[in-house]
């Protein structure tokens, strides 16, 4: 660690006392893990006045912790669940709680959250900040749809608490939605209040295999019956760990509801679908999702369900072969592999011409910095994003290449 790093560590120790764990990362960069939102505010407020550049980290399970910065600020010590009410189906959870630990804690109370993020070992803060919903997005909506409120510490060290703890709330402007999926561009999430659900009584997975376009057509036919599966995913051979593409349909709900949906799905497609045994189904989804970090980068492309084949053609044309998962109901193509910033930017521009936004979900720093998480905005949007960033992070403390140019 150089002199500047040492001086930052000394300063942080003097400021935070026992309210943070302070050390260095593998490269010798000062790393601070505050134990309270007040301590997070103090770090960011000081960074804003001292001109430090701050890198936000969760468990490093999704975003590589390699951004150039003066300080790494991690949620690793924010691992409490201060409020979990199974009767109201609401939980307030600190951002550093690891997703699998959260799932277990919720299950212990007979509840679950209908978010199944790609990757593994990630923190709640990472899932919310990157807005990375998984296949369940088709049936239950995006990450933002599960949030009732957040606590956000802004780039200049202010603590704000938009939203609340009730399932319906229109008081004030919805800054919760702004914070979700913005990759930390506006601040660090210290806690999140989630809308929960009772654990569904029936949970069934049907699978079939075949050629990509035949499976997309079959999935579209399922939607046309008026059925909305919890997940309706077309997986590439690499994602399915099989020789062929796979159509995976997940149905959750009450027993009669799932039975009716199974009949509707079976009647909609000529493709043979078979029901996975419970244990096998319980393995399929997490294994498929864990593959989303097989490559160095992961991106998602949004499109209309009827244009998914075009979106896939674009991805396959511009990028090397990788891991692919297609959320048919949600209109999402997710790809993971290795690609240069130039390739990604070319794809983003080509996709934008077809009204398909590309979000770079994770990538090595040099690729992220050049590509930006977002970009190719419609006219006028980049200006708004820049102004919002300046509002929440006036000193430019947060190292987040959001792509607001």
């Amino acid at each position, binding site marked *: 660690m150089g002199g500047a790093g040492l001086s930052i560590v000394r300063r942080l120790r003097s400021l935070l006392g026992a309210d943070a764990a302070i050390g260095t990362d593998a490269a010798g960069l000062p790393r601070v893990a505050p134990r309270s939102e007040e301590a997070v505010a103090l770090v960011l407020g000081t960074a804003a006045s001292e001109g430090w550049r701050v890198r936000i980290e969760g468990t490093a399970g999704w975003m590589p912790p390699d951004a150039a910065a003066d300080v790494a600020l991690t949620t690793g010590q924010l691992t409490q669940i201060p409020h979990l009410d199974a009767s109201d189906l609401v939980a307030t959870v600190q951002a550093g709680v690891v997703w699998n630990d959260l799932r277990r804690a919720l299950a212990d109370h007979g509840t679950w959250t209908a978010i199944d993020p790609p990757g593994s070992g990630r923190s709640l803060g990472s899932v919310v900040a990157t807005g990375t919903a998984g296949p369940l997005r088709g049936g239950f909506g995006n990450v933002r749809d599960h949030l009732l409120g957040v606590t956000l510490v802004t780039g200049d060290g202010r603590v704000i608490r938009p939203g609340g703890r009730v399932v319906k709330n229109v008081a004030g402007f919805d800054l919760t939605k702004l914070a979700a999926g913005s990759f930390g561009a506006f601040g660090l999430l210290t806690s999140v209040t989630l809308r929960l659900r009772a654990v569904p009584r029936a949970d069934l997975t049907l699978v079939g295999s075949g050629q990509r376009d035949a499976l997309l057509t079959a999935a579209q036919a399922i939607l046309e019956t008026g059925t909305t599966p919890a997940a309706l995913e077309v997986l590439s051979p690499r994602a399915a760990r099989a020789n062929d593409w796979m159509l995976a349909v997940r149905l959750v709900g009450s027993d009669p509801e799932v039975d009716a949906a199974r009949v509707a799905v079976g009647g909609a497609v000529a493709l043979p679908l078979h029901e996975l045994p419970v244990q096998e189904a319980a393995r399929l989804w997490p294994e498929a999702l864990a593959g989303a970090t097989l490559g160095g980068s992961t991106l998602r492309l949004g499109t209309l369900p009827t244009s998914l084949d075009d979106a896939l053609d674009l991805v396959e044309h511009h990028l090397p072969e990788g891991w692919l998962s297609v959320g048919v109901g949600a209109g999402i193509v997710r790809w993971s592999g290795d690609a240069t910033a130039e390739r990604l930017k070319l794809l983003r521009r080509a996709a934008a011409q077809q009204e398909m936004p590309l979000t770079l979900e994770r990538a090595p720093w040099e690729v992220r910095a050049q590509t930006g998480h977002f970009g190719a905005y419609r006219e006028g949007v980049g200006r708004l994003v820049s*102004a919002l960033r300046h509002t929440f992070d006036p000193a430019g403390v947060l190292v987040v290449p959001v792509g607001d140019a």
Partner: protein
Amino acid sequence: MGVPARVTSALAGVVGRGSVRVAPAELETYASDGLPTHHSRPGAVVLPGTREELVRVVQLLAYHRVPFVARGAGTGLSGGALADADAVLISLTRLTRILEVDPANRLAVVEPGVVNTRLTAATEPHGLHYAPDPSSQTVCTIGGNVAENAGGPHCLKYGVTTNHILELEVVLPDGSVTTLGSKHGEPWGPDLVGLFVGSEGMFGIATRITVRLTPLPKAVRTLLADFETLRIAGEAVSAIIGHGFVPAALEMIDRNCIRAVEASIYAAGYPTDAGAVLLVELDGAAEAVVVAEGAEVERLLRACGARTVQVASDASERERLWQGRKKAFGALGRVNRDLFVQDTVVPRSALPHVLEQVDRIALAHGIHIANVFHAGDGNLHPNIAFDSRDPDQLERVERASAEILEVCVAAGGTITGEHGVGADKLRYMPLIFDGDTLGAMRAVHLVFDPDEIANPGKVLPIHACRDWRRAAAGGAPAPMAAAGGGA
């Protein structure tokens, strides 16, 4: 004071003289919304007939720095769409075209003045509907629903407006036009659609709205359970949700409201000696689904203490059970000169306690309150009866209303679940948000509207918003551990 004549003349040049109103009698039509306690006559009203006219109107007003207020059908319940004498009210009721229905992708594109139920009527032939169903849905507009993030009985299962808006073309307060989000719902950058929905007309005006359509349920089952007390009915609500049921609607009607309904032409056969009735609607993809779930819910209701449970066996029976709920406001309006509909939300488990507190408050202030509300969401609507000619009553209603909000906030709730803050609840915002959070909202507002000309004076109590820029310039807060020390 007032809107300068050169501005109204210029507006007439854009939309035609017949679509600009300046006569006091005409302006009076726009001086109130659905909330009877607020009244404000705009300086002028303009009714653009096309999207292009709307954009030019906003550009013209931005150029002259004249404040404006967008308004749909005027059914809002927070005084949010009222303009004062210095402002121009922009009525969107002529922008009524449904521009596209895309059944394969389950979406529709509409102009802001399209009436909620008209959209559903247009999509039903495709087996789809627009799910958010505020009780004013036969007259309220999609643009107004976007501004207020409107809810409705069926939002328990299907979500509120924000869950159904995919893309917005908006004219910002400076007159520039931009498109937020994308047609399939994937945000294009940070979620500006989510931010815009519910901004109560203060971030600009939606000129084209892309909405998500939802498949029509193939089968519906409606149950009506009556309970001895509100408390027992409240506990049954938690039991239903806690057992994993997600009813399409779960509505509660209390004794005062039941009696008003049963004494009216809308009588639905609700038992007048009940403390409360619960209306539970289940929907699904097949008759077998709702029959089986209905039987389970019926058992649960009885186990929770329901005295009787009626199950609608056909559409007309279902209609009858719903009639009391849907016509409750009408029935209450019939027997009261004025009615103030409060809108708050509490955690479901707090419903029994809060409802008892509402009763206590009514008693303490000598006023009559009837409750009819979205119990599944914990979204309360105490209806407070009063006579606006009596200043003493008005004052008691105000005090009772404030106390109800305080009780709800203390129980972990919020000050509005679907009606919005508007002008009516400005003063209550500090009950739920601190100065920094309000300051952040104001700073975000200024990004969209630096001149503060779009629906000025609503939502944010300026005095309670911590000054964002000044505080930022003050640097870091004081050290937490004055003595220092390592960790």
